[in-house]
């Protein structure tokens, strides 16, 4: 542990953590509003979740239990690295079980299991500005937020319908928070949008490269934008998880061979494993067990 002794607890120095906590508090006070903060260089490249890592580093304490997921999985490189990072620099306990975690840092998913009070979900955000797609000027987008000029957001959805006959945006689907700020929920599938609404957990969003932090406090209204005649709808999967048989969960397609064989499995690995441990078996799970 001598190698890490030179680092402060959770890597960031206390001044920086204080600065980030102030930004987080402000973000919680103004749900959905993007608070600028002075993003630090982290020992990992941009795009690996430097924003989320800084937020986690600023809120984590020695008693916290950390879970890190990437696309729903605890065992991908990004998730493993970040989990190992905090185990090293903060000596915190880590877990893969959603229910046991006090802090969950995530890239691209919200766990299937409903989060409870006392839990905090930290999102890694690449592009925090939902209006950026159509308005490149930051000065202008800030003004638009300030004046609640959100017509442009619907222009994007209009284009979707005009081009595809329906709202084809499937991830980073814009939401309105507490009836005021339009927010990018980070590139989570729109399947997860309803989970943000009135969640009992605190949701924090960190964009390292873009120097922005925003938040959705517990019990906050989060509404996905839509048209009256093209209402918001989540993705629907035809078949249940091939391994655990779960329905109404988000599934990943897994290619099995070069002959077009594939299966759909839970994107949330913890949810899948927990279900299988409880005896749920999916179509392909049965065959495996039979071998």
């Amino acid at each position, binding site marked *: 542990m001598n190698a890490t002794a030179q680092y402060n607890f959770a890597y960031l120095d206390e001044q920086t953590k204080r600065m980030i906590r102030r930004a987080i508090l402000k973000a919680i006070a103004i749900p959905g509003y993007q608070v600028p903060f002075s993003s630090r260089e982290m020992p990992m490249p941009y795009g690996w979740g430097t924003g989320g890592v800084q937020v986690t580093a600023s809120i984590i304490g020695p008693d916290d239990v950390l879970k890190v997921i990437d696309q729903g999985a605890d065992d991908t490189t990004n998730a493993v690295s970040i989990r190992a990072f905090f185990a090293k620099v903060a000596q915190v306990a880590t877990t893969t079980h959603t229910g046991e975690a006090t802090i969950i840092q995530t890239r691209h998913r919200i766990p299937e299991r409903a989060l409870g009070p006392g839990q905090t979900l930290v999102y890694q955000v690449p592009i925090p500005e939902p209006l950026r797609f*159509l308005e490149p000027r930051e000065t202008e987008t800030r*003004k638009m937020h300030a*004046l609640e*000029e959100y*017509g*442009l957001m*619907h*222009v994007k959805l*209009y*284009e979707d*319908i*005009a*081009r595809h006959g329906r709202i084809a945006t499937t991830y980073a689907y814009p939401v309105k928070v507490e009836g005021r700020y339009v927010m990018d929920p980070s590139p989570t599938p729109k399947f997860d949008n309803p989970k943000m609404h009135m969640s009992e957990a605190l949701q924090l969003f960190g964009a390292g490269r873009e120097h922005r932090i925003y938040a959705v406090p517990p019990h906050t209204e989060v509404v996905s934008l*839509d*048209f*009256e*005649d*093209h209402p918001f709808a989540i993705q629907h999967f035809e078949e249940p998880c091939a391994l655990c048989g779960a329905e109404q969960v988000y599934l990943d397609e897994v290619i099995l061979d070069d002959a077009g064989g594939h299966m759909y499995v839970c994107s949330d690995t913890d949810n899948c494993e927990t279900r299988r441990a409880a005896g749920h078996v999916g179509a392909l799970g049965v065959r495996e067990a039979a071998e």
Partner: protein
Amino acid sequence: MTTEPLLRVENLTKYYGSRLGCADVSFELWPGEVLAIVGESGSGKTTLLNSLSATLEPSSGRTLYRMRNEQWRNIYELSEAERRFLVRTDWGFVHQNPADGLRMTVSAGANVGERLMAVGDRHYGHIRDTALDWLGRVEIAADRIDDQPRSFSGGMRQRLQIARNLVTGPRLVFMDEPTGGLDVSVQARLLDLLRGLVGELGLAAVVVTHDLAVARLLSHRMMVMKDGRVIEAGLTDRVLDDPREPYTQLLVSSILQV
């Protein structure tokens, strides 16, 4: 017939540092009235237009506008939110270069629909029907509704810009050389279209142009500017047929006859 003007301009002056943009301009504009501002490059007509449309803040003077609630407001004292709302609902601004007034990377339909969405229209079908109706009115074929203006000709882009501006039923439209970069035959079509729409909708408009033929065709009244000042003003046909000022006579006599 309304008994009150829509716009009341009082002693508008704009300096850029020590250099004069426009000086001491006063006039009233009534509903349904089209005012042309003519003059050569550097005469101050664009400065005046930008001041009138609250794009520029003048050095002194006021521009009073009769809001939809009948209240008179000095447009330079509106809050940013009020001003922007006014600009996207009750006003229109047609730029010489359509790319300045359009979103080039979204479809024609969305370009027209944006102002509707900005004021809260949340019904896709209605927005699309309205966009189709307006494309028809500016003579753009319905099957181009999902094309981006990047694929449009100059004349089509300009007509699209006009539709985008008029969809919310503004009462006042500013136009900066609306036929500027267009071929003559395309100009004629656009002028005729504008003339028809302005008459039909009872719009008030301020049109900046250096083209006296455009002024004659579109405007009821005109102001001639030189070196930042209005040197002659009046009924369009009187100013053009019986110009008094040396500069106006020069302008009128410089028109090429065909």
